[in-house]
């Protein structure tokens, strides 16, 4: 993971601040940094979104392709995640340096989405056992300043919301052979229901307290963090302890409680924002990458 070196005195300073609910950048323990979201930023994908959270910058592109359903679940489509750690984000990612982190991040994404209600995978089925939509979710890290998971999950949710899958019609000829026909009308497309897509909240244990949305600096002061993915209803779909330290059972309970509360609060404004952006339609001025 991208890391920074922190001196002992600076650590103590950060930890004392956290103890008094005042962080280096002026936030409280449960506050997120300023967040910017823009969808439909890459025109050659079926859905995309760019999220910047403080100095962390993430781009997500989704491509829908027709594939074969997995033999165990013939009536469902599936998602594939790939996280690319660009060397632009940090020199550490140069060459194969980012590979390990990328695999770790994508593995966790699989876990977060590995349940029945996050996304209706049945709606991705075209013809049971033969054809289904495969959504390739490609995450690109453009800049890392901590809290990659939270930013990633929000970007994925926004990109899924933005995704438009062309409608297909299956026609059968006389001999029973099936043929897939793609709709000619580019506006005749299917949208995904992203209501249940979870958001990840990562809590970093610093001293005796925990903080939301830790920067790299703050992360360096913490030995263990807890990743919690929460749906808008407050259902927890995934929990992972990350890092080499251990946690007190009581603080785990406190952290899951906070995680659920914070996670639930993220969803409503996010959906509102996404809907608002869409209602602007084509009039919207695109900000792009230079914002």
């Amino acid at each position, binding site marked *: 993971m991208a*890391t920074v*070196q922190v001196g002992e005195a600076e650590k103590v300073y950060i930890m004392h601040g956290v103890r008094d609910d005042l962080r280096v950048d002026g936030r409280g323990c449960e506050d997120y940094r300023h967040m910017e979201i823009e969808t439909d930023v890459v025109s050659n994908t079926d859905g995309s979104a760019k999220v910047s959270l403080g100095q962390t910058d993430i781009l997500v592109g989704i491509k829908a392709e027709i594939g074969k359903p997995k*033999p165990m679940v013939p009536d469902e489509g599936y998602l594939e995640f790939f996280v690319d750690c660009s060397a632009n984000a940090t020199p550490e990612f140069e060459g194969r340096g980012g590979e390990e982190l990328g*695999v*770790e991040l994508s*593995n966790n994404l*699989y*876990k977060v989405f*590995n*349940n*029945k*209600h996050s996304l209706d995978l049945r709606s991705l089925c075209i013809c049971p056992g033969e054809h289904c939509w495969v959504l390739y979710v490609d995450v690109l890290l453009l800049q890392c300043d901590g809290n990659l998971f939270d930013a990633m999950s929000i970007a994925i949710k926004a990109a899924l919301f933005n995704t438009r899958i062309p409608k297909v019609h299956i026609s059968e000829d006389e001999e029973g052979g099936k043929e897939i026909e793609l709709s000619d009308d580019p506006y005749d497309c299917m949208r995904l229901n992203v209501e249940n897509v979870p958001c990840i909240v990562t809590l970093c244990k610093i001293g005796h307290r925990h903080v939301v949305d830790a920067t790299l600096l703050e992360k360096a002061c913490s030995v*263990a963090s*807890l990743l919690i993915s929460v*749906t808008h209803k*407050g*259902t*927890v*779909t*995934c*929990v*992972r*302890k*990350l*890092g*080499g*330290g*251990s*946690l*007190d*059972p009581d603080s*785990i*309970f406190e952290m*899951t*409680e906070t995680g*659920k509360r914070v996670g639930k609060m993220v969803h409503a404004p996010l959906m509102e924002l996404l809907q608002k952006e869409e209602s602007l339609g084509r009039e919207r001025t695109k900000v792009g990458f230079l914002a």
Partner: protein
Amino acid sequence: MPVDNKRVRGPEISQSPLLFLPPDSQISKVSSSSGRQGARGNGDIRPLFARCGLVSQAKGSAYLEAGNTKIICSVYGPRETERKDETDMKSGRLVCDFRLAPFSCPKRGAWIQNAEERDLSTALAESLQPGACLHRYPRAQVDVNVVVLENDGSALAHAVTCASMALADAGIEMYDTVLGCALRQDEERCLVDPDLAEERAESSAENQGRVVVALLPNLNQISGLQADGEMREDSLTAAVRTCVEGCHRLYPVVQQAILRAVKKKAAPPPEK
């Protein structure tokens, strides 16, 4: 797919016979009415068999059997670290390699380590790390190799226990043993130490999931926590509590096994 020419290859495509079973004999759901196998209560762990020091070539090793789940672990080192680029050389590294034998699951697995195994390796390392005094081994690495010979559920949890026994057997300095316990939540039912059928059973319940906890029993610290599925926060907390209890229940067996190995090693040389 790259061709694996370092192994004897079979046909390009082969399918497990399990895919062609008559539809009615498919794996059943977690039925709430029927009890667990072997008249086990929902909160009971399976009888545990644990031994240290079986692999003659290793610095330390352990074998663990819980029901049909069979896990073997060996520890090598501390030896010189292979990775020189690490910035933090002040403390040692714990390198974990978690493998499922190809014949360990109902469906045959590949020899090449897949993403799931790599994921489990990381989870194992993060669970063990808080238990080991790694600062005592600067510039060194300790290798922990785990092979699951038969997976009948709760593999990660038992792998954690087994690995910490092997670390102790290898004489690696530790703050505490690390114990693992798994749980399957299905609506209001909590099944501790689930077997594979319980672990993988399909469930349409709103509140269901899988939890794995790694615990340092004496320090009362949780060193590993994984939960998947869809759980309410209150049942998640309850599940973690139940897992902690489960860990404490297997502690005596683990202690005994380690003690036995120590006694064997410390036995005075026979008089001549």
